[in-house]
């Protein structure tokens, strides 16, 4: 979903609204305990200069993955990766 003229805070609020709205949708006609939840990844292109299309997809996808990782039914905003991989540096040395 592509939001025009939105900042990250607004996008987050919007995503949360969506998430709750889907979570509370009445689906009892299929089964009594039936509920559908969604995970949402959010990315903003605000400062990105080049390649924003690819960047957006990559970033939103990463955030979505994180949301899933956090136990689903979640909204996550893209943050740069935070884990080191010391092995990969040996190629550069």
């Amino acid at each position, binding site marked *: 979903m*592509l939001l025009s003229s939105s900042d990250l805070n607004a996008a987050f609020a919007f995503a949360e609204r969506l998430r709750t709205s889907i979570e509370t949708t009445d689906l009892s006609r299929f089964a009594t305990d039936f509920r559908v939840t969604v995970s949402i990844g959010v990315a903003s292109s605000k400062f990105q200069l080049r390649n924003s*299309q690819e960047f957006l997809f990559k970033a*939103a996808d990463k955030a979505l993955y994180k949301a899933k990782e956090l136990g689903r039914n979640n909204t996550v905003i893209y943050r740069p990766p935070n884990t080191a991989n010391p092995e990969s540096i040996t190629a550069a040395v």
Partner: protein
Amino acid sequence: MQFWMLLPWMFLFSIITKQSLANEPLPLNDYHLESWTTKSGLPHNSINAISQTSDGYLWVATWEGIARFNGRDFKVFNKKNNDVFAKTSAISAIATCDNSNNLIATDIIGGVNQFKNNSWSKINKTPPFARALHCDSFNNVWAGLDSGETIKVSVSGNSNIFLGDSERSGGAVYSILGDSSGGVWVGTVKSAFHISDTLTVSDVYQQAGLQSQPTFSILKDTNEDLLLGTNDGVYRLKGNDLVRLSPKLAGLTVSYMLLDSQHSLWVGTINNGLYRISQLGVEKYTSNPLLNNRIITVFEDKEHNIWVGTNGGLMKLRQTPFSTFTNTRGLKSDFIRSLVELDNGDVLVGSSGGIDVIKDNEVLPFPSEANIVNESILSMAKGNNDALWIGTYTEGLTLLRRNNFIKSYKRVDGLAADEVRAILATDDKVYVGTSDGLSILSDSGFENFRIQDGMAGNFVLSMFQSKDDTVWIGTSTGINRIRKNGNLEKFELIDFPDVHFIFGFYENDESPFIWFATDAGLLRYNPVTEDIFQVNQEADLPFDKFFGIEMDSIGNFWLSGNQGILQVSESQVMEYIDGKIQKLDYKLFGESDGLISKQSNGGAGTPIVKKRDGSLWFATAKGVSKLDPDKLKISNLSGPPVAIEELIVDGVSMDLGQPIHLASDTERVEIHFSGLGLATPESIHLATFMEGIDSDWVWSTNRNLREYNNLPAGHYRFLIAAKYGRFKNEELSASQILEFQIHPKFWETKSFFITASLLAASFLYFIHILRLRNITKLKAKLHKKVAYQTKELQRQTDSLQEISFQKTKLLEELRLQSKKFEKMALEDPLTGLLNRRAFDAILSDKAAEQNAQGLCLLILDIDNFKMINDRFSHSVGDEVLACVAHALKSNCRDEDTIARWGGRSS
């Protein structure tokens, strides 16, 4: 006594005419050496003589034939492919004649052969085995024989004049040098002689009242004094005095001498390698053991490469912008990681084998007793009070003071890890970057920082103190900085998700910017506005993983990487960032520029150092490479000459020495050509153009061949242009033209055309008469036919009108159908949302227009959707999808875009 010791040196410097210091020759051991042997196409490894013809080819005489070199490969002429060498392929000597247009080669049994107009011929004969050969300005060939005789042979006639005899010359002639009046100087195994144009012979040594000496090489210096290469070094004959040129050469047997265009004297010895006497004194080439072989001949080509013929192959010495110190020049290891300039201008080299010092162009052992000298070094930094901090791969951190061991720190002493990749010593603290966090050493001991303490990553690669006293820390996952307040903070690169490794930092006094060398390009940070810009491969750079960053004294960035070293001007980078230019004009330096390996190192220590004298030093996987940016002009060679190597017409090689006429039934024309640059043949770019056939110049960098099939008859001009390095279109101009003619087929000739035209005209006249007679008959018949056909036409018109009506109806149906299809092509049929294709198109439009305000992309995925499908059914799954789509639609504003994107809806 003192005077006598000085004298040789005085003469030594008088070899060199007044040259400015700016033209100072390159230190001999900085020359880049390349070598060729039988493995690379030479017919034999013993090189008897080297020469170059005016077309640009280099010629090499061997015992198994004569090889012509175009910079890439050798074409060998021998008994297998040429009748001239039918009796023997052993070529003992070569020389150029007629302003270097022709080549003369003598074979071991006395044949004098000439290569002229692209073919060999036997022009004369001498007794066997000429070792020395000279062609004078009257095109007489002088041959010095193993028997001791010197023979003058005329190229044009048959006259052979025999001079001297073995008794007098004392044995084999090794060297012949022409004088200005048609005579020659001859060096033999016993003495040196002058033979005048009137064939008067005199002994050079005896004339001066001196003892004769074996003389293997004779030259004239720029003062017209004779230089004599003997079995006891080099002497100069000044008047009647014989003066030793350099005491360093005493006792050495000189095999060959060459005075190069810079007036340096090259001296080859029988078993002691190659020497050079120049402004820089007497030097011996020790950079490569290949030149310890017997030196047979030395030659300077038009591009000032020095070619050396040895009994172990052909060598080329070239002045390159980079000069590389390796293991063979004394380094402990070739894998270099860190460089430091010491206060006295020496360069400290830290490698996988330990520490060395480069002082005045020479590798010396690091004068310290400490064990650290032989450890695998990762990083080095100078500190206060002559401190030298050294980081190792496995042995932690060591402090030396005035080269004495003071202390070493390991993990057990509180250091974050024993692998120390970067060190920064400030006035009161030492920052130590390790493979597992940052350690800060102060009077109160170590304080360690890892991810949980606010580090962007634990694997520290680089450190830097900027002029505002901020300490910058580059890790494998981002940047930290410590500002004056002493707090460690993360430096966010959220807008650059492709940047992970920060290998280096750069700033200068002239501009406010700080530059980061990263694995995804160069970043420019403005500390005032906090703007960051990225310069990567989109700027047309050949690669954008940069290990090291430095700037030379004329405003060029130097960026080192795995694919070589890039030079790009700072002002261009600024213009690119400002959007004024779309591409950066860079120079890429690699193996042909004197690097032994273009793979630069990084990720630890300081991979580039700029010395106070302006020189730049680079750590590579194969040694330390030094660049004097002032010497860069050496690589700006003018365009190399171009040669047509072969013209093959329907499988047959054509004689290029004659005007070329090709038969009318010619099918296939192959043109083989070559840029005859001997300096860096791999960097030659060629462009070709066949007038009237090619619509534009055609580039050939690798394949020096053009093919044409079924060319029509006519006159053809094939143009070739060549240049070192990349061409710009406006620089194109042909430096070689191949012309040839394809004859017309017999029906394309003029006489055939006239005969055929006359025949056709009379035939047409005959037909005309016949027709006139027929026409009258036909007229009556026609009248009848016209009436019938008018009726038929009316019937056809009616039926056509009916068809046209049906067609309009059908078209309208098709239009409605296609509108439906178009909608289907952009929509997901299940949810009624846009599909992926439509979404991508909209995103690409919006990304372009909405840049200022920014966009947000949400990817939404239904949790455990597969389970829903499995547990209920696919039709329930479809309904859930529709429900979610509905929820999305009802929460959305008009300006937002929703689509179902593949397996997911986003």
